[in-house]
């Protein structure tokens, strides 16, 4: 039994609900970039949408598009990952608490101030009574959601699932992280951020949804494995062991797609990897920016590549397009603590 990506959709800093942003990405010259919103009215009636925070609207739109593409009207499970949840409404609620002396607090902001509201709001929208969970584990939130989903498939508890990574980065949170040196003061061209390493990176945000099933027909890619490691003294060895557990080795991997973001400290971990000579490498964070669930965008980019059977110049670290790719290994870490490994392969012949 394999687990396949039947449908994908992303709302990010690139063109929403389109693969255009992977092949012809927009470049930014700001340390913080917010999502380009889709036309919510096409998907949600105004009276329904009014009580949804922006991140929930993005999640519901991405989920609907992914499920429709996969031909899955009702998934057996909805499992989401988010680093911050509906932080914008959380901020509004806390701000009102301070300003109004804990009086006159608006119930809508309170309802949406809980992290796990995302999966449940998607379920309410779909009328889905299946398994429902939201993982909130900072930089490995999405990978945790994906890992749990793979376990559910493995146990035979589910035969389809909606998995996603959703995060918004508000200006106050951007400022807070900036105080501890997360962001660059100046970004000339976001697409060149890895090629011009310095202290800090640029902030993005995004909502990426995947409709998964056991049906390989017409699928974007197969998810061969996912693994998470809190500590990882030897990243290369750990990645090799991950491949070994799947009955593979480095020569089976066409592309290693890393979470490089241009920050000197963050990228040191990837520079220290001892990859086989001539190994093709790719990066996705110049396209989506850094945020807790950015690896979901990485998996989206990898799925697009495998569907097309090529690595576009926009993702290739050396800027050279490669055709005929069949397997992509995604590596990421968060603050040199949470390491993740995801392996995707092509479904084509």
């Amino acid at each position, binding site marked *: 039994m394999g687990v396949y990506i039947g449908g994908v959709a992303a709302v990010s800093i690139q063109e929403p609900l389109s693969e255009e942003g992977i092949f012809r990405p927009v470049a930014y010259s700001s340390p913080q970039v917010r999502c380009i919103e889709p036309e919510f*009215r096409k998907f949600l009636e*105004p*009276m329904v*949408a*009014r*009580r949804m925070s922006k991140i929930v609207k993005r999640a519901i739109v991405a989920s609907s598009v992914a499920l429709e593409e996969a031909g899955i009207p009702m998934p057996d499970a909805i499992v989401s990952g988010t680093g911050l949840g509906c932080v914008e409404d959380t901020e509004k609620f806390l701000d009102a608490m301070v300003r*109004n002396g804990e*009086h*006159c*607090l*608006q*119930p*809508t902001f309170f*309802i949406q101030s809980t992290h796990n509201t995302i999966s449940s709001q998607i379920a309410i929208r779909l009328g889905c009574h299946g398994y429902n969970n939201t993982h909130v584990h900072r930089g490995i939130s999405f990978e945790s959601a994906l890992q749990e989903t793979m376990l559910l498939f493995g146990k035979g508890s589910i035969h389809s699932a909606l998995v996603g990574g959703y995060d918004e980065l508000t200006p106050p949170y951007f400022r807070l992280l900036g105080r501890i040196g997360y962001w660059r003061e100046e970004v000339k061209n976001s697409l060149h951020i890895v090629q011009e390493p310095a202290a800090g990176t640029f902030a993005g945000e995004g909502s990426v949804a995947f409709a998964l099933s056991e049906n390989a027909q017409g699928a974007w890619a197969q998810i061969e494995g996912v693994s998470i490691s809190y500590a990882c003294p030897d990243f290369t060895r750990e990645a090799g062991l991950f491949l070994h557990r799947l009955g593979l080795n480095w020569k089976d991997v066409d592309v290693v797609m890393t979470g490089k973001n241009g920050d000197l400290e963050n990228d040191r971990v990837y520079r220290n990897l001892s990859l086989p000579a001539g190994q093709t490498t790719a990066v996705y964070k110049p396209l989506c920016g850094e945020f807790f669930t950015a690896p979901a965008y990485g998996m989206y980019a990898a799925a697009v590549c495998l569907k097309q059977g090529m690595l576009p110049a926009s993702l290739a670290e050396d800027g050279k397009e490669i055709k005929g790719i069949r397997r992509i290994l995604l590596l990421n870490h968060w603050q040199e603590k949470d390491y993740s490994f995801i392996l995707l392969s092509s479904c084509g012949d």
Partner: protein
Amino acid sequence: MEELIVKLKNEIIDVLNLEGMAPEDIADDAPLFGEGLGLDSIDALELIVLMEKNYGIKLKDPNEGKAIFRSVKTMADYIEKNRKF
């Protein structure tokens, strides 16, 4: 009173996030709940908070709510008579 009704409509649109709706889209006498605007119990809570925050009115008797929140006009009437600021 006319001025208060327009102000109240704007506040309702803002607090209930009625995107794309203008004050003129809400009739003064149209029911707020049920067949009119179609508001629900969470909206009722939002309106109670609005009255307290913007006009200093605390609703003590829940039975009063049904009559007060029947329409924008009934709300404005009640605010006019009971506002603290």
